[in-house]
């Protein structure tokens, strides 16, 4: 009776051990799967954080266009509020006292469409030009953030009308961090 009991218990113990090993292996497997999944998920979150930071910078850059010193005041032609009055921008470019106004190292406005014209814009040269550099304090201004804006002006041809074009504003410096 005693020897029978001993044999039975050894078998049972072996089976229990086997089962325990299998269960531990299952748990380790699940642990690894979860680790891989979360590492992939966290890397995705890092990308999201970068995208959000970029988006925030774009919004700040676009806000520059809606400051009273640059904005196109007529809301009937500019519903978005992100329209730059090109004449204001060209006058600001000439006034060096505005260089520290936005606390930026670099501020440039590009005319994207129409694609006619090249080079930097002057008061008399618009619209046959491409860029208006408002602030350029240093050569090493780093990476710029940019946003699409409308570039509006009063066109005197055909009795006079408001002409809005597609532009992009680029900025870099402490003011957009």
């Amino acid at each position, binding site marked *: 009776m005693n020897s029978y009991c001993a044999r039975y218990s050894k078998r049972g113990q072996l089976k229990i051990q086997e089962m325990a090993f299998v269960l531990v292996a299952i748990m380790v497997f699940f642990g690894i799967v979860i680790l891989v999944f979360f590492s992939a998920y966290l890397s995705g979150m890092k990308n999201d954080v970068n995208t959000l930071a970029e988006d925030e910078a774009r919004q700040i850059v676009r806000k520059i266009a809606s400051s009273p010193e640059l904005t196109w005041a007529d809301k009937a032609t500019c519903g*978005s509020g992100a329209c730059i009055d090109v004449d204001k921008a060209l006058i600001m470019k000439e006034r060096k006292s505005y260089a520290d106004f936005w606390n930026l190292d670099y501020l440039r406005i590009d005319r994207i469409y129409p694609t006619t014209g090249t080079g930097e814009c002057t008061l008399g040269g618009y619209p046959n030009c491409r860029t208006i550099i408002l602030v350029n304090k240093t050569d090493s201004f780093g990476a710029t953030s940019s946003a699409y804006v409308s570039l509006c002006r009063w066109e005197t041809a055909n009795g006079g009308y408001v002409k809005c*074009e597609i532009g992009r504003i680029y900025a870099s410096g402490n003011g957009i961090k």
Partner: protein
Amino acid sequence: MRKRIRNKKGQEEMVGFVLIVVVVAIIMVVFLGIFIRSSKSQDYKLQSVDVHQFLTSLMEYTTDCSLTYEGDYADMSELIAECYANPGKKCLSGVTDCQALNSTLKGILDASWIVGENSAYTGYVFNSTYQENLTSFIVKKQAISVLKGNCTGKSFRGDEVFFSNPPGKIVSSFRVCF
């Protein structure tokens, strides 16, 4: 007799352990399933501030098409609405509203979004659709569509803007693929 009781106890503990592992595994699978499903349905991730800003500036662009008198040039949103409502109507310059819309839109898209092998973008799709909510269904009619490059992949960013066009509205969407 004592050994038997001990064995029984060990087996009971084992059954408990197995139950815990099975329950934990099921919870993990359910949790992962819910998590993957919810992350798939998060469309907001596809929205792009850059595209939204582009679309709002695009709608304000003053075209060269004057439909009433010289100097009253339509902006892009007006031209899209006009091309949808009166496709053959001529601008004062002689071209039809839809031709003017097509050429201007393609020019702006080409200048704003560089697509191709040397670019990060593989293609783009622009769509403007007239939408009207009726009591039982929504009427959708396409006003204009512009497609360039390859935009069939899953990696894209986009957004849409809309403006009123009674009795409905015109929804313009833009998607850039990479």
